[in-house]
């Protein structure tokens, strides 16, 4: 008798007991449930919630691995100086980088999953419902969108807040209005701003070394631009570094290249909506382009504090900061996003548009993608409502203008012929 049968047996034995949902969760996570529909003409497909979630996690793994190496790379480069002629195999994919990155990033992953799943289990036991797989993706997203040196207790508090207030109070997976991972990020941002912004938090070890002779720092690209240090930024980072992600930033958001691959994978597997991704990219380009035009027309003086970010070429907004990561992995969340196809275009476009706008105008912190997505999460049902109403009205109008011709030739039942106007 294998483990699978053993678990089926235990499940039957403890059916209806208080801890049953907790056990069932582990059971469903490991194997297909022993009880499936027996009769009737059901279409059986393998893409259940578990597989959907695992596909997204699969798409996130490259970002996580890259983040681990990048953590080490940024740390050692800040101490020893950036290499003159950069070579991936010599300077980036090294054992030292991996070890340092792993001992910094993996605790974030463990805390995120540990606290989040614990709360999910507690709620499942109290409410007597099954544990949903929803947290599997959230738990992976959270460590990728926070700065490397976020204290673990802060992360734990934020995860508890995000899962309870962002998700469980609304009824759990599938009922939440806001994306839980972004709720966690927003909580951290407002609760502990000193750990979420500035030039000290993006490189491992910078906070402890601050004020000593060994002090190191790493400003993000957007941080440089927000302070008007465009020349310095270009002297330090070139375009390919921005695109491939050898830059400081939150753990998993730096590599636009891997995010692009992940996005294509999600589109190919039909897990995420390509409409949202495409329209969000168009939206951000449009806003960036408007800012570029304002600069070109000379409507904004060079001493303005917005000049640095506004003059940044519009398409480069996509390869720095968290915009690409947000568009691919967060905006496409099927629960909190728009459901109608037309709604998805509007929803995505506004996410891109607002992200770049907030990024430029936010005085405290030059990034805004998480705020833009949370805002549009709130508006997504409204967008859907008007899209559906629009469709209903269109069809009502069509019905009103339709001509109905009774077929009286052989006295048979009158045939209705609606003509589209």
């Amino acid at each position, binding site marked *: 008798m294998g483990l699978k049968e053993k678990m089926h047996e235990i499940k039957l034995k403890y059916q209806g007991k208080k801890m049953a949902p907790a056990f069932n969760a582990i059971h469903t996570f490991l194997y297909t449930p022993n009880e499936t529909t027996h009769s009737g003409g059901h279409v059986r497909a393998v893409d259940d919630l578990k597989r959907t979630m695992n596909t997204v996690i699969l798409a996130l793994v490259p970002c996580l691995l890259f983040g681990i190496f990048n953590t080490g790379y940024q740390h050692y480069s800040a101490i020893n100086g950036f290499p003159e002629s950069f070579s991936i195999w010599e300077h980036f994919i090294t054992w030292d980088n991996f070890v340092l990155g792993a001992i910094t990033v993996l605790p974030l992953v463990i805390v995120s999953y540990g606290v989040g799943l614990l709360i999910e289990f507690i709620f499942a036991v109290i409410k007597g419902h099954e544990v949903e797989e929803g947290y599997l993706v959230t738990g992976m997203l959270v460590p990728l969108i926070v700065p490397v040196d976020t*204290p673990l207790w802060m992360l734990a508090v934020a995860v508890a807040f995000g899962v309870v*207030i962002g998700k469980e*109070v609304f009824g759990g997976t599938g009922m939440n209005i806001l994306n839980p991972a972004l709720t966690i990020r927003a909580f951290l941002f*407002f*609760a*502990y701003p000193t750990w979420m912004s500035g030039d000290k938090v993006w490189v491992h070890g910078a906070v402890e070394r601050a004020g000593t002779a060994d002090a190191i720092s790493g400003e993000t690209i957007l941080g440089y631009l927000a302070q008007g240090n465009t020349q310095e930024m270009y002297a330090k980072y070139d375009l390919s570094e921005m695109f491939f992600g050898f830059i400081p930033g939150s753990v998993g958001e730096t590599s636009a290249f891997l995010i692009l691959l992940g996005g294509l994978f999600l589109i190919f597997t039909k897990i995420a909506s390509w409409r949202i991704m495409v329209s969000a990219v168009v939206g951000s380009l449009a806003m960036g382009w408007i800012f570029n035009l304002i600069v070109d027309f000379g409507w904004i003086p060079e001493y303005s504090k917005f000049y640095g970010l506004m003059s940044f070429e519009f398409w480069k907004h996509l390869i720095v900061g968290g915009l690409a990561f947000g568009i691919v992995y967060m905006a496409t969340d099927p629960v909190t996003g728009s459901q109608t196809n037309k709604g998805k275009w509007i929803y995505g476009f506004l996410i891109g548009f607002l992200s770049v706008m907030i990024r430029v105008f936010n005085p405290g912190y030059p990034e805004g993608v998480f705020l833009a997505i949370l805002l549009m999460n709130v508006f997504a049902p409204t967008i859907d409502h008007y899209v559906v109403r629009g469709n209903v009205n269109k069809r009502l109008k069509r019905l009103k203008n339709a001509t109905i011709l009774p077929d009286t030739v052989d006295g048979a039942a009158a045939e209705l012929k609606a003509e589209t106007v």
Partner: protein
Amino acid sequence: MALLSKKDANLILDPLADNNPITIQVLGICSALAITAELKASIVMSISVIFVMGIGNVVISLLRNVIPSKIRIIVQLIVVATLVIVVDQVLKAYAYDLSKTLSVFVGLIITNCIIMGRFEAFALGNGVWRSFLDGIGNALGYGVILIIVGFFRELLGSGTLFGIPVLGDPIAKTGLYSIGYENNGFMIIPPAALIVVGVIIWVQRSRNRALIEEA
């Protein structure tokens, strides 16, 4: 002999729990969000509202048979405005810093829906003693929530209670701060009060399921 008959006692006790103006009727939210970042401000606000509502309800109840119903809202506004100005002047004279913290929100007691609501719903149709008890009861129900919210927001947001540090010194890193604890900046901003009030509503309704409205 009991001080209050059971019916009269319920006028005070009901608004404290099962008919709370903030958590059940969801009135007076504006000031509950704005001034609860500090416990002291919450308490002063509660006392002000108790004063205004107690006396206001008595005055309206006394006048209830002579107020023409067409202009009753104007009369109610005059009564509450007079009382609020008294409170405002007293605060300015004896607690200037606090009146700065409370700023316009003392003046805005005039528009607090709880007060107008009780004038309309109770004082206009009941005797003086019962109106007084009802006013005090509702103001206490409002105050209790304000104080609970103020307690959590000040403790978690600033690490103090009544301005006295209770968790240690954040700059010298003593007490809790020596092991890496930090104040939660989120608790300082008004949206946090919305969430704390929401959690109170959640706790109250899961303890007493009869309070949950039909969907």
